């Protein structure tokens, strides 16, 4: 009888403890999941905040022309950019790794390598060389991306030396001569080779890279071949990515450049998609502003003396040619000849108005 009582009491005690234990585990689990979720959320919030800080920084930078800055930013940034020719739409966004928020930059011309993972960002702004302000080009890179210029004649004033000298301050850049084949892998995140078109042909210039051929080095090297025509700062660029497994450069595409700031964008990004997408944004802006300037010229013509009117008619004609720039295919510089002539004519006309007449300036 006594044994039975003890066992019942023991059972009651055990049940009590078991109940408290389960409830305790449930409560602890609840708090634990709450803390885990909060920590993960806090991490996401921090990454989102970093993306937003970068967004503010780049937006403000793009409003301040001809400026350069070095910013401490030790997070990995991924840039995505694409242009759909069929729908004439582009998608551009960047985000800090781990951030659920993507900062869109559909109306900013931001040239950068696809991935930046370093300690500090190097940011430079330049205007497109059209005479009147259209859009500020923002270049962003870091010291973990290496730019290697193949210049054989250092004395000659070449496009490559112009680009070399225009690169953002503190960029990791190098000049070599001869061939890129034996160039050492210095363990940078990416190495971008920049070279000018020669008579030798692509296969000779873009040989196998002896030191970039391990499987880990996929997407570690890219190359740009620039061919400038009669004018030093206009021409075409061909983009290549190095495939370490195939041990050769793969052709990515071709595009045009109209001045030094645009070709600098191609070099900084080293990527056809990013360059093409941003170039389209420049053309859309050019087209839009040309329309606005035509309206402005019409408004001027109504209010200025007759002697000035003819200049504005001429300016309107040039602006009309510029308006069409948005429609031109970007694979051949010939498509842009009339637009480039229009830009030069506008510059001469504006200078003439400024120095020889009392008429209001075009821009």
């Amino acid at each position, binding site marked *: 009888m006594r044994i039975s009582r003890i066992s019942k009491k023991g059972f009651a005690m055990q049940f009590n403890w078991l*109940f408290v234990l389960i409830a305790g585990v449930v409560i602890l689990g609840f708090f634990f999941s709450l803390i885990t979720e909060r920590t993960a959320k806090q991490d996401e919030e921090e990454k989102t905040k970093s993306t937003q800080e970068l967004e503010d920084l780049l937006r403000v930078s793009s409003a301040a022309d001809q400026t350069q800055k070095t910013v401490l930013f030790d997070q990995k940034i991924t840039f995505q950019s694409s242009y759909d020719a069929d729908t004439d739409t582009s998608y551009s966004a960047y985000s800090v790794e781990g951030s659920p928020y993507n900062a869109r930059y559909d109306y900013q011309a931001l040239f950068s390598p696809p991935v930046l993972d370093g300690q500090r960002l190097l940011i430079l702004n330049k205007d497109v060389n059209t005479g009147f*302000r259209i859009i500020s080009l923002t270049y962003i890179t870091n010291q973990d991306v290496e730019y290697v210029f193949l210049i054989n004649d250092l004395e000659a004033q070449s496009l490559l030396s112009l680009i070399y000298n225009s690169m953002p301050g503190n960029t990791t850049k190098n000049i070599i001569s001869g061939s890129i084949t034996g160039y050492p892998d210095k363990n940078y995140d990416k190495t971008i080779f920049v070279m000018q078109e020669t008579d030798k042909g692509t296969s000779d210039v873009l040989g196998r890279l002896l030191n970039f051929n391990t499987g880990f080095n996929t997407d570690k090297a890219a190359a740009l071949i620039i061919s400038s025509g009669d004018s030093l700062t206009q021409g075409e660029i061909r983009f290549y990515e190095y495939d370490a497994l195939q041990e050769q450069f793969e052709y990515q595409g071709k595009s045009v450049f109209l001045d030094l700031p645009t070709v600098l964008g191609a070099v900084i990004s080293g990527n056809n998609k990013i360059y093409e997408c941003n170039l389209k944004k420049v053309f859309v802006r050019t087209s839009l502003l040309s329309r606005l300037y035509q309206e402005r010229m019409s408004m001027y013509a109504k209010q200025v003396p007759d002697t000035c009117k003819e200049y504005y008619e001429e300016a309107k004609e040039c602006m009309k040619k510029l308006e069409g720039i948005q429609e031109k295919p970007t694979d051949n510089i010939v498509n842009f000849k009339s637009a480039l002539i229009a830009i030069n004519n506008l510059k001469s006309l504006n200078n003439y108005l400024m120095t020889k007449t009392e008429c*209001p300036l075009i821009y």
Partner: protein
Amino acid sequence: MNEREMKRIKAQLQTTETIFVIFLILVIVVIGFVIYSKFHEGTIKEKQREQRAREVIELAHRMSSWPELECSASGAQQFVCLDRIKLNVLSDFINKSRHTDSQAFNYYYDLLGDSQIIVKEVYPSNTQTYKKDYWRLYNNPGSTSHQNIIWVPVNLYNPLSRTYAFGVMEITLYE
């Protein structure tokens, strides 16, 4: 009541007590969670307010240096200065393109969103006459009454008479 019955009641009481304590703890946890959620909701709203304030300041900063509006001489930019002819052109262009050219309007809509941008001359003229000393560049009100307004002092330049006036750019950002 015998001893056995007493112990049974005592055990029942103990179990009820434990259940009650657990229930109480759960109620406290739920109340704590509700209070935390309310507090967190307040923090989110505060962050949204901060974000909107930042957006409107950023928009004002960008607008004051827009090539569409800025005063320039041979491409050289002047600080916080708007060209009166450009103001007329842009306000006409945006209003016209709203009905005729969706691509051009969408371009500005993407940049300006639900907002209203007004530029007024304050000195020497202050008659509030449309296109003379008052320009409504863009007007696309949102669906709510919540709004952030910022005023930016600007120079207004007339390239035809080559004269300056003092004005204010009023930027309203709707939620």
